[in-house]
């Protein structure tokens, strides 16, 4: 039991902080900080800066560009990245398909994909959820039928995040409809988004933005070599991949920055003749969220320190659940600090309302998603009740 970082870790933290705040372009980090939309080119640029320094995929096997870091190093890396407003390496590439390829792909697939995946030369998207298979993912119906050397894929996916930017998709398909358990009989296929028969429909979200899509497959021919791992073992890979997704999803660094912004803005807003930050109830609200966030950060550190065996700690559900609640509490706080100014949401030139207040409500509305995606909070409670409390 020891509070201080070792001198080596202190130096590591300093190194990360310096790198992120000096090597990743300021304009990109400003966009992240102010919750504006980051373009595809900017995502790619930022990830390539990281990758060139070996900081895009540190959790991958060393031979494919990873670092042999401790969980605590990975934690520090992620937190510092968020605190510096660096767009995180694309999760679909680095946390999802990359580790799956590295663990379950054949050598040919590794060579073909991994380096380009780390460098965001290929932009991947996820073909998992379907209109009738959300939290109940195993009910998916998109089918892949073997026809000669190809799989022929038919069906529909949804909630495909940033699919509009994607070059390739990794896609769960039902390859054995006769399997006894619905979790069996699912396989993982990968194919380019410009394969004939693939069409994409963007879904407008509440904040007016487009970040998710429906993807339709009509007789899409996928070469047999694009099957990842074994046929009908796709569910295992999906579970492996979603476990990775949950790690780091607490987003403490990101919420911490939001909270620092909230304090700053509360100082600028005048209410009842004094800065809003001096209102005792506003100050207490901020202090309470901040303390909740500290508890979350310490729990993330505990979990990181205790998951050296590579498996996600069962308490990682706590991180997802509480992390999403605090992200939402922080975005709601910004709306309330903006107060009447929050109505000017799509103001452009000629408005006197500051940018942060304009984006506050769209951002708040958009962030209702964080307690839904990546395993909804109901799913997390089910995991805690079942696998931790034995209920």
């Amino acid at each position, binding site marked *: 039991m020891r509070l201080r970082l070792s001198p080596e870790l202190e130096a590591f933290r300093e190194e990360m902080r310096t790198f992120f705040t000096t090597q990743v372009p300021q304009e990109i980090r400003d966009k992240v900080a102010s919750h504006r939309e980051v373009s595809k080119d900017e995502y790619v640029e930022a990830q390539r800066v990281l990758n060139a320094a070996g900081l895009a995929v540190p959790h991958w096997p060393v031979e494919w560009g990873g670092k042999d870091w401790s969980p605590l190093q990975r934690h520090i890396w992620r937190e510092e990245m968020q605190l510096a407003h660096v767009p995180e390496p694309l999760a679909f590439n680095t946390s999802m398909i990359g580790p799956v390829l590295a663990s379950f792909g054949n050598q040919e697939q590794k060579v073909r994909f991994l380096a380009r995946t780390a460098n965001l030369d290929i932009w991947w998207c996820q073909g998992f959820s379907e209109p009738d298979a959300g939290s109940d993912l195993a009910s998916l119906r998109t089918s892949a039928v073997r026809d000669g050397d190809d799989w022929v894929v038919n069906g529909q996916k949804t909630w495909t995040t940033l699919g509009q930017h994607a070059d390739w998709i990794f896609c769960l398909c039902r390859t054995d409809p006769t399997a006894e358990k619905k979790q069996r009989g699912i396989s993982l296929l990968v194919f380019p988004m410009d394969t004939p028969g693939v069409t994409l429909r963007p879904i407008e979200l509440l904040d007016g933005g487009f970040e998710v899509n429906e993807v339709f497959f009509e007789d899409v021919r996928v070469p047999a070599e694009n099957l990842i791992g074994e046929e009908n073992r796709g569910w295992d890979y999906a579970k492996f991949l979603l476990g990775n997704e949950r790690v780091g999803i607490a987003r403490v660094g990101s919420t911490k920055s939001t909270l620092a912004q909230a304090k700053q803005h509360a100082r600028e807003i005048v209410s009842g003749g004094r800065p809003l930050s001096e209102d005792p109830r506003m100050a207490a609200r901020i202090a309470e969220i901040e303390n909740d966030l500290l508890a979350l950060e310490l729990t993330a550190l505990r979990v990181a320190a205790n998951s050296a065996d590579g498996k996600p700690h069962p308490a990682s559900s706590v991180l997802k659940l509480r992390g999403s609640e605090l992200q939402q509490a922080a975005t709601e706080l910004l709306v309330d600090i903006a*107060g009447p100014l929050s109505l000017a949401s799509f103001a452009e030139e000629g408005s006197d309302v500051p940018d942060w207040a304009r984006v506050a409500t769209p951002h708040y509305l958009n962030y*209702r998603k964080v307690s839904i995606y990546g395993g909804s909070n109901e799913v997390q409670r089910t995991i805690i009740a079942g696998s931790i409390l034995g209920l």
Partner: protein
Amino acid sequence: MNFDYDSEQNDLREAVRGLLGRAYSDSEQRRAVVRTDPGFDEKTWSRLAEMGLLGLPFAEEDGGMGAGPVEVAIVAEEIGRVLAPEPFIETVVLAGGLVAAVGTTEQKGELIGAISEGTTIAVFAHAEPGTRWTPTAQGVTATRSGDGWTLTGVKEPVPSGARADVLVVSAVVDGGTGLFLVPADATGLTRTGYRTHDGTRAAHVRFDGTPAQQLGADDSPTHPDRTAAIERALAQARIAYGHEAIGAMDTALRTTAEYLRTRKQFGVTLNKFQALNFRAADMYVSLELARSLALWASMVQEAGGDVVQAADRARLTVSRASRHIGQEAIQLHGGIGVTAEYSVGHYTSRLTAIDHLLGDGDWALDRLAGNVTSYATVDPLGAPYTP
């Protein structure tokens, strides 16, 4: 003491529901309407006028229908039920209410009639980037100029400010806050409109030596302080928005319950999951408690009681309920709840807008807390709520 609508009120509700139900029978209709300026349907506005709804609370001698707060509440609730984007509260309750309360006979004759007929949209330009839900002006100043006045400064955000034909503007005068009328075509008036997250419109409005007419008799060199009249009009609008929120929450809850009954996951409908049902039950509790308080606030207004304090009370409870129900409605839907293509998220969006229009729950609580130890208990049927 009773909470029942009389038969005329029930008829009114049916008629409004019929009209708005046709105009916004599904959420795509509303999406199409709010996509283009002015963010509402001028034809629907005319139909509201034809039905007499735009003159509802005004005295008959001014060209209105002589109805009361309960009738206004009924219309507001039906607006909320389908998220009709027409600026009813902005024009009728706020701007119209100020004209009716403070205007001269002439001003009333001219404006109340035109508002009631639907030919003039008036809005209250009051919020400023430097103020926070105050009844006073600070950044717009009125200066004597010959027989009239000129205004200088900025109002923002002004709901429907770009579409409005007439602005009722609050401005700093010697000794307080005055009220002025500015027509849309006034010189020195710059309006920059934009869309807001809930699909409605707001504007940045700049006055640059803009000529303005004093609201009320301009028969003395000074302008009387209108802070109390503004506070009262804001309170009435808070109550009306409360009813709009009740209507929106009612739909959000019914939509959610319907989704739980029909949406299947894991081979069963979602209402087989007790945890979800219990959360829907809690939404119902929030809604019914807020409804009681909103109805009571309208009755206090009707009875001539302390409408400002009653409005604060309604505001607090409606705000808490709006957040609870708006957030849970999305969560219980899952991903579809945050899309613009499905209805329920728009209800959350509008509830969030209403909550921040004229003071949110914490703001109302601050005002109530400042007073809480000055009396022992609240008697909803006694002073100060009945005169």
